[in-house]
Each structure stands twice: as C-alpha cells, then as structure tokens.
C-alpha cells in the first residue's frame, strides 16, 4: 500500500474504446456492414473502487469487460493499466508483453457451471494461475490454495473434490478463489450472481465486498440487476447500444437520473414490496438491431421525450455545471423521476 502514492490513482483508464464486428455475407466474406458493439466509450476505474456497468443484453457491457482483459482485441482506442512500474496500453500490447500483466487483472464469470473445468479438482483449478505464473513448488501452491479456500468461506479439505460436488454458490466461491490467487488489483465481475439462487446471492455479494475491503481490490461490476449494482458500486455507467449514456454515483443516478433511458431502467425494476408503486415507465419496443441502429440519438425511437433534434443529431456525452455526465439533448428541460 505504501507504494501507492506514486501510482496513478486510476487503475484502468479507458479512452475512446471501440469494438466493431464486421458483418460478412457469402463465401467470399464480403463486408456488408458493421456492428458497433462498443462505440467510443471512455471511463476510468479508480483504485479500490467498484464501477458498475449496467444496461440491457446486447448493450456492449460484456464486450467492454472482455476488451479490458484482452480476451478480445479492441478495434480502436486505448486501455491504460497503471501500476507501480508505469502505464501500459492494454489495447495494443502484444500477447507476450501482456502475459506478465495478466496476473493483475482477473475475472469472475457469470455461469458457475461452465467456469470450472469439471475434470480438475479444486486444487488444480485454484492453483492453475499460480502454476502458470511460476510457482512450481507443489507444497507452496498447496498452502496458498488452502489459504484462498478459507478466505472465500470454503474448507481447505475440499481441495481434493471436484466441482460437481458443489452448489452454484460454492462454485462461484471457487471461481473467486481462483481470481484471487495471484493477488490481482482489478477483478472484472461479469454478472457474478445472476446464475445463483436468490438466497445465495447475498452471500457472494457480501464476500465480494469483504474481499475488496481487505485487499483494496478494484472491481468492474457488470450486471443487469440494478439493485445489486446500486448496492455495491461507487460509480455507475449506464450503457445503451454500445454507447455510454449516463455516468454518476448511485445516489445521483437513482435519485435524479438525467437520461430518459436510466429513468426507464430504474422504473422497470420490480420491487419485492407489494406497496411499491407499480406504474412502470414502459419503454416502447425493444433494443434496436445493433447492426442497423437508429439515426441521431440511438434511444429516440423508444424515448417518450424525444424531439426532432434527437432524431437527427447524436447527443455527446457531456458534463453539466453540476458535474453530472450524460448524453441527452433535453436533459435540462426534463425532470426525470428516480426512486420515490
């Protein structure tokens, strides 16, 4: 922790990130169009904080997380990883230079069943990152795995068991232990609890928060569940069709959303309270096809506040005088409702 003073306070800085997928047709693979899965997105992940990334399926939130981990190569833009030694642009680094940096960023997956190799026992699963990063001594690895399993609330003697013996929540803990193995500074959590039973979700969320407090981890928390994102995040990015439409603290976003899409998202969340007001801001239709997005503001066909301007020009993501970041032409004139 002492070295942190000299280090950039943002662990990750994403600048103008773009990921386009070409659409091809025919045998000759002629490019007929392009899907802008991520379109000019910039944000930072401050050290020790949790950044929430929300939006509906297909909005590009998973693509961003994969770009940061370089599971896929971004089309354009920069992704800076800052550590004690300096600042690296992950977007362009060749694989062999990337490899030593990989241990600083880890991932927790959505599906607790597909994320663990069914042929390996817990020791092999959790110790693999150690082995791959040069810890050749088996006893050393064993000690570390033991420590990790206990840390995530499992018993050390589970080491010799195989994933099928565990429930979804326990498997997710195993995945977390694997992610922690190399003492990473950033963990990308891709919908880490959406595959779990309701009663276990809170266990995992609490564990993630405890680990963050203990190790000063930074999280990128990708989820469609606004309640959980609100609970765990320090800052939230709302995405729609590959673009960032609003950014702010949970307090700001939920009490006074600035973008009509954020408002609709919040109002759509069903509350486990029979007395909660049930008048949803119903959005018209569904997310448009990303290969053929609407003109102007991508959200205008579903927006009840859309004006002529929205159909023509795409609003830029701007910071207003009160420090709020959003992309909407009419934000000044709108008085959007958040949580009541």
């Amino acid at each position, binding site marked *: 922790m002492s070295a942190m003073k000299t280090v950039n306070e943002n662990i990750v800085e994403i600048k103008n990130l773009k990921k386009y997928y070409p659409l091809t047709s025919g045998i000759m693979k002629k490019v007929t169009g392009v899907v802008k899965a991520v379109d000019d997105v910039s944000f930072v992940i401050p050290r020790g904080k949790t950044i929430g990334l929300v939006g509906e399926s297909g909005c590009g939130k998973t693509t961003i997380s994969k770009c940061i981990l370089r599971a896929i190569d971004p089309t354009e833009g920069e992704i800076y990883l800052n550590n004690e030694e300096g600042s690296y642009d992950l977007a362009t680094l060749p694989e062999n230079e990337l490899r030593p940096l990989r241990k600083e960023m880890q991932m927790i997956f959505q599906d607790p069943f597909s994320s663990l190799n*069914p042929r390996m026992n817990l020791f092999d699963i959790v110790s693999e990152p150690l082995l791959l990063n040069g810890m050749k001594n088996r006893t050393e690895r064993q000690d570390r795995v033991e420590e990790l399993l206990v840390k995530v609330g499992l*018993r050390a003697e589970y080491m010799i*068991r195989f994933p099928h013996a565990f429930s979804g929540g326990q498997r997710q803990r195993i995945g977390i232990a694997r992610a922690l193995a190399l003492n990473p500074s950033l963990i990308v959590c891709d919908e880490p609890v959406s595959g779990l039973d309701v009663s276990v979700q809170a266990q995992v969320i609490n564990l993630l928060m405890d680990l963050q407090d203990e190790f000063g981890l930074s999280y990128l928390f990708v989820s469609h569940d606004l309640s959980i994102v609100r609970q765990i995040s320090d800052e939230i990015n709302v995405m729609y069709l590959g673009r960032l439409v609003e950014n702010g603290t949970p307090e700001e976003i939920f009490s006074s959303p600035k973008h009509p899409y954020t408002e609709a998202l919040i109002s759509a969340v069903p509350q486990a309270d029979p007395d909660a007001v049930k008048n949803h801001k119903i959005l018209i239709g569904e997310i448009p096809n990303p290969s053929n997005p609407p003109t102007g503001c991508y959200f205008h066909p579903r927006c009840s506040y859309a004006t002529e301007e929205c159909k023509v020009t795409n609003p830029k993501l701007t910071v207003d005088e009160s420090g709020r970041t959003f992309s909407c032409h009419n934000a000044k004139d709108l008085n959007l409702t958040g949580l009541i």
Partner: protein
Amino acid sequence: MTLSSLGKIFSKKNLPVESSNDVNSIELATQRQLIWRRFKRHRLGFAASIVVVLFYVIVLFADFLSTAPPVDYAAARGYMPPQGIQLFKDGHFLSVCEVSGARNMESYLMEYEADCDNTQGISLFGKGYDYKLWGIIPTNRHILGMKDETVDPNAWIHLFGTDKQGRDVFSRSMHATRVSLTIGLVGVALSIIFGIFVGAISGYHGGMIDSILQRVIEIIRSIPTIPLYMGLSSAFPEDWTINQIYFMITVIISLFAWTDLARVIRGKFLAMKDEDFVTAARLNGAKTMRIVFIHMLPSFYSHIIAQASLSLPLMIVTETSLSFLGLGLRPPAVSYGVLLKDAQNVQSVANMPWLFLPAILVVLVILALNFMGDGIRDAADPYQEV
C-alpha cells in the same frame, strides 16, 4: 456430523461458511468414476460391454480356444454338422460321440452318423495342434482336447461343424474374430489419431484453416467407397503376404473413417472454446498446448471413446463386406467376411445352416459394440443426474 448439529453451528455463528452435508463418495469422485458409475447403471450398455470383453478375450486367445487348426484341409470330414458335447457319459466328464462318415454317391456329399454308444473323452486344457501363444510362447494346450492322445485330435471336436474342406468352423470363427476385430481396433486407433489431429486444428483454430479442412473432409466423404476400395485393393501387388494386405486393408478403411471422428472432435472443440474455464485459463496466460491438452481434450475423452466404440462396428462391417466381395482379405486368411463368403450359396442355406454361425458372431459383436457405445455416450453426458 449430522445435519442438525451443523444447523446449530450456523445459527450461532452465522458465518458465511458453506455447509457441506456428508462427505460421501460422489463428492470425492472424479469425472471418470462418475462416468463409470453411470455406465454400470446403463444395463444394456454394461451387458454389451461384457460381451465385447468376451470377444476381445477371443482375440487374445484365438488359438487356445480353437479345437483344430483353422486352415488344415481334411476332405474326408467335409460338411460335418455341429457336434454336441455330452456331459457325464461313460465315466467322462466331457465327451463326444463317435462319428462315422460315408460319401453319398448320388449327391457326392459326406453323410455322417453319430454313434453315441461309443464316446471319446474330452479333457479341458488338453493337447492339440502346436501354436505360439501371442506369437511368443510355444504350446499345444487348447481349451478342449482329446483325452486319448493317440487319436487325431483334429478329427473330433467340431462345435460349429466343418466346411467343405473339412475345416473346423468354430476354430475358423475364433481366428476370424481375431482378424476382424483387430482390423477394427487398429483402424479405429488410426482414425482417432488422425481425427483428433485434424479435428483439433480445425476446431481450435477456426477461420480459414477450418473452412479448408472441412471442405477436404466433405470431398473425402463424397467419394463413393466401394469402387474406390475395389480400385485400391486391386492395386495390391500379387506377391504381398497376408499380413501386408491385412495392414493395407486397415489403412484403407481408416482413411475414410477418420472424417466422422474429426467432425465430432471439431464440434467439441468449437463448443468448448467458449467455455468460461477455457477463457479463464487463457486469461491466466496458459499456452495453446496446455489449453488443448489439459483443459479441452480431457473433457471429451469419454466422447471420443464412445464415438470410437460406435465406429468400430462400422469398421468390422466394412472389412466383412470387403472380404465378402472378394476385395479384402482372401483365403487362406480367415476373417468374418471370408467365412461368410463360403456360406453364400443357396445350397448352404438349405443343407449346411451351420456355416452361418459366424454371421451370428458378426451380428452379436456389432450389436454389442453399438450398445456399449450408446451406454458410454449416455454415461459421459455431464448433464445427467449422478
């Protein structure tokens, strides 16, 4: 520890420690053990696998199980019907009736009469013709042999009868089993190696290489096989030994069979490439070789085994058909196809039904292999309940 006492611990401390019920065998079992558990429960598959094992016991001990040399002619014993073995007669534990034969001068066929008042004793592990077990150990012990060592042992025990030249059909079936089943096994082994190699490259690499390899496979599969086999087998030089032809037949068969396996393996690789645990390994800096051989291939070993045991019967049938058509092995080699070729006329159907006994073996082994393959496939399905 009982569940209720666990409950007490939790209610007191409320720690986020996971409860695990009892440490039973399932929780500690490896995937292989689980598959074995499920396979044992697949009754048909399990029974079939016992039959398959028996057949491969025959492969290993064909000579030992034979009662007569498979290629020795004895015209005087042609078309002898199957002999029954009698239990506990005349002081012998096992015995056969004496048989006397005479040629019917109208039909020129041998006619036999069993004289069961006079019996010849048989002993287990008796002496018979000389052979080398697995080509190494010289011996003359067989599972059945004549007690009276002065009589010609080859003339007596014909469990499946004899063929035209008086060769023992049972012994020939044992040897045919050895030949046909090893051709199948070697052929499958060759096609597995080739299939994994091509399938892994195709599936893991994807893109252009995948497209090219898939087109190649399609071309190979579109070639009509019978004419090609005819062409290839007629190209065998006349002076080739049985062993050389035997080997070439195996290679030819597996040249076509690998495509199926390659497709299956490619599909598995494609599906597995996006599994999260593979991504996790990749993100931790695992190299391609490690991902393929440590993470991906072991996940579908059992599928490969299942696929292999399903393509084995195809190999055996192919060999049988080729030999039957005269394109594969030719006498004096013995294989299922060669045996059935002997039985392919109307006369045999009517008068010598025992010549079809090898066909029963073929059907039996094919069915057993298919059932076993199905069983393994079902057992290997990871989504099945344990």
